């Protein structure tokens, strides 16, 4: 029973933490976008653009990094 619960917990965490660096980077992008919207006094769409294009860039960077590591 304990083993199964541990596996369940690991699976739940694994659902959202596919790769540690990507997870942290996404959270940082969300925090930056939130700060731009709430504190910088800019148009909220600037925060939206940072969120959208930040995530797109992170995805490409993460896949390329994994390809370099995986292939070497």
């Amino acid at each position, binding site marked *: 029973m304990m083993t199964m619960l541990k596996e369940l917990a690991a699976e739940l965490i694994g659902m959202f933490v*596919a790769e540690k660096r990507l997870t942290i980077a996404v959270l940082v992008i969300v925090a930056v976008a939130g700060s731009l919207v709430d504190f910088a006094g800019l148009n909220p769409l600037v925060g939206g653009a940072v969120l959208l294009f930040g995530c797109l860039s992170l995805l490409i960077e993460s896949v390329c990094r994994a390809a370099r590591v995986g292939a070497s």
Partner: protein
Amino acid sequence: MMAWSTAAPAISAAFLASLVEVVEAFTIVLAVATLRGWRPAALGTAAGLGVLAGIVLLLGPLLDRVPISSLQLAIGILLLLFGMGWLRKASLRAAGVIPLHDEEAIFAAEAAELSEEARRRQRNLGWAAGITVLKAVLLEGLEVVFIVIAVGAGRGLLVPAGLGALAACAVVLAAGAIIHRPLARVPENTLKFGVGVMLSAFGVFWTGEGLGIAWPGQDLALLLFAALFLGAGLLASTFARKLAVEFA
């Protein structure tokens, strides 16, 4: 009034994501049923679905108590993490950097594990087989529950998203009942790629709304986000294929 520009992506994301998860659970259920009979497989499945139903009934009412902007932000961030994780893996699989998911191989591995268990323990095999199925149904089912809540809760689309998931279960069960073999021909990576695209798009959309961003075009922005994530995933996959060759 249901906006189809939001409802259609929510229903299709729930359907396709559930299709992938149900196929994975079905492979384990079939392996157990083939080796140990349908009784432990059916009991394990029923127990897994029962626990999932309990989780939904317990957590469902709590969602109504959370302010909508906080709910959108929390779900949006989780969707971003979940969707981008899927999209990353699907891009790497499409590039050939990591191997494709192979239902036949998983079926064989599960069957070998159960046979090994049979040699070691000699008894309580029905129980062990049932637990194996329960675990598989629960683990894959939790992902389905999360996806249904995530794509449905932000706009009151829980029921349509749930119906999308149920339709996926029905499709897999019907296909499984007909062919009685692991569903190896399902283009799983293509599905995962598509679902990763949609979940990531929903993730940006909900996170932005939770932060107070009013997206231009409202729900239609989802389609633009999905197109951009699709483009980024394909681009990443192309780069990854070149890098894998270069660094090999």
